[in-house]
């Protein structure tokens, strides 16, 4: 009797172990390095700015009152504008590309995926500097254009919106392509064949079968490009000449030169709230589990 009890208990413990081993480290990691810092950010956003920097632990809602200033509204609107344009362009460029890869045999597809990832083996600042060198007044692109007789004077590429967009898209494209690829790859060919057999034109099949079925991947792509694009400032600073402030710049400045940590924290909380709202909207449309985060 006793012996049997013992074995049963042993078995039970045994069956919990894999779960603990799988989820334990990641949970611990997330709690220590994500949840606690995030709670701390929320906490200091309600504190007072120290006269000589740092934070005085006195409750205050000053930071949130400051956020009501119209200037922050404008900054957030500009940040949104850039993030929306980046996301839309990434989807427009990324979807056909993901479709193309997904229709290739697996070994070719994995090589193509690799090609998207290779630029990410170098630091993003290095890549931005490379764009600058390529496109500057006496850079190779202008030299080539002048040698071909296409232009007499060097064309001004750097510090234009055009180059900023190029930088943002190249930085974000993998985050758009990968989830969409994973969605499109799962698409069953038989569905498309069925659609064709029932007389749908390819364009109708695409709009009424392919697109709805790959929607989870598209939405993941939207979230994964939109959220980082909202906070990014290195690309716009370097390629755009730093003439415009985005929310990321302002947060950085509060924790740096301006020494107003509570305001920086409050802005970060605002960014978190916007993100949470986006996820909430997504959850109204689809299950979070369907999100194709590769």
């Amino acid at each position, binding site marked *: 009797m006793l012996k049997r009890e013992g074995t049963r208990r042993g078995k039970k413990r045994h069956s919990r172990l894999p779960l603990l081993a799988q989820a334990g480290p990641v949970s611990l990691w997330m709690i220590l390095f*994500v949840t606690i810092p995030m709670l701390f950010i929320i906490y200091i956003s309600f504190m007072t700015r120290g006269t000589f920097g740092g934070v005085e632990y006195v409750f205050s809602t000053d930071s949130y009152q400051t956020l009501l200033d119209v200037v922050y509204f404008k900054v957030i609107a500009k940040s949104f504008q850039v993030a929306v344009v980046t996301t839309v362009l990434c989807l427009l460029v990324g979807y056909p590309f993901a479709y193309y890869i997904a229709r290739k045999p697996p070994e070719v597809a994995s090589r193509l995926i690799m090609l998207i990832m290779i630029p990410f083996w170098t630091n993003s600042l290095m890549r931005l500097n490379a764009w600058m060198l390529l496109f500057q007044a006496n850079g190779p692109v202008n030299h080539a254009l002048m040698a071909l007789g296409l232009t007499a004077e060097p064309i001004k590429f*750097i510090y234009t919106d055009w180059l900023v967009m190029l930088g943002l898209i190249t930085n974000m494209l993998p985050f758009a392509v990968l989830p969409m690829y994973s969605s499109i790859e799962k698409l069953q060919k038989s569905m498309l064949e069925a659609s064709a057999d029932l007389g749908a034109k390819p364009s109708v099949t695409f709009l009424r079968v392919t697109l709805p079925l790959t929607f989870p991947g598209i939405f993941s792509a939207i979230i994964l490009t939109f959220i980082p694009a909202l906070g990014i*400032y290195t690309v716009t600073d370097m390629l755009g000449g*730093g003439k415009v402030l985005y929310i990321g*710049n*302002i947060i950085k400045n509060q924790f740096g030169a301006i020494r107003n940590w509570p305001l920086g924290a409050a802005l970060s909380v605002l960014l978190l709230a916007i*993100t949470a709202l986006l996820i909430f909207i997504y959850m109204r449309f689809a299950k*979070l589990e369907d999100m194709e985060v590769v």
Partner: protein
Amino acid sequence: MKKALTLILALTLALSLCACGGGDPKPTGSGNEPSAASSELNIFMWGDYISETLISDFEKANNCTVNLSYMSDNADSITKLTAGAGDSYDLIMTCDAYMESLIKGGYLEQLDHEQIPNADANINEAYWFGDNRDYCVPYLMNYIYIVYDTERCPIDITCYNDLIRPEMAGQIGSIDGARNLFPMALIALGYDPNSTNESEIKEAYEWLTKFNENVVAYGATQENIVNGTISCMLTYDGNASWAMNELGENNTLTIAPFTSDPVQLGFDLFVVPKGAKHTDLAHKFLNYICEPEVMAANLVDFPYSCPNDAAVAAASDAYRNDPAFDFDYKTNIFFQKDVGDALAIYDQYYQMLKVGE
């Protein structure tokens, strides 16, 4: 659980890109043992800013180990000092603009000038100011001035107000930051460069919107003037030195011959954090870097403006003949002072400037 994790993961993404600038290098050495004769010195400063030979010579002479760790932003050292850095560091580099807050906040140890005779003997009297002398030793310094290309710049620049003339549209590159831009505007308007008066700061903001219209880009000034993107820059003398040397014999850059407007002079200086463990070695180090030959050798690797007159006299010909340091209004200067809570006003107008109200 999965739902929660996914949510957290997505939220993390939002913050991850904002966090790029927040590097917080850990000290390379750990020993904080209270010792009679210290064998270890922990320094926190800018990376690539002091000669390795200088450090190893000091280690040999004093039979000690020097642990250097590096800051990525001026705010890093303020963060460390205000959080109580004495446990981890013996010397921290900061700049003159923060000294008043640091002294008032009680974050610094007072220096014993008897232990640093070289500093008193060699550093020019003009570069010690106020109470700072009791708490810091200037290391190197930088002018923030105007440099322009005599062939490409449409006009000759002799004062800050020239920068907002319409001819200068699309010609200017500038360093960034509220406390670098506003003093220039305040001087152009005839006010105190460290004003805490909001209406003056507001006028300076209006001046800067005109300046901003002529600016092509903030940051990377030296590269931009060399590659032809701009023809005039508000920049550090170290950047100008790089640009002039890069152009070599084709150099057509000149330091704007200002007649009355002062230029900003900033210092990188060493302070001893409150409660530092190895103050004896810290003093020895401060005294060592003020020896003329030692600093002169250091200037070969790091050719920046130096407050140590004896070291400049002992420095190489190349350093003393550097065109970036050759201008005649070196004493017509102003310092960036700690403006205390007015920093928030500057920040507000700086944001308006960059958002384009």
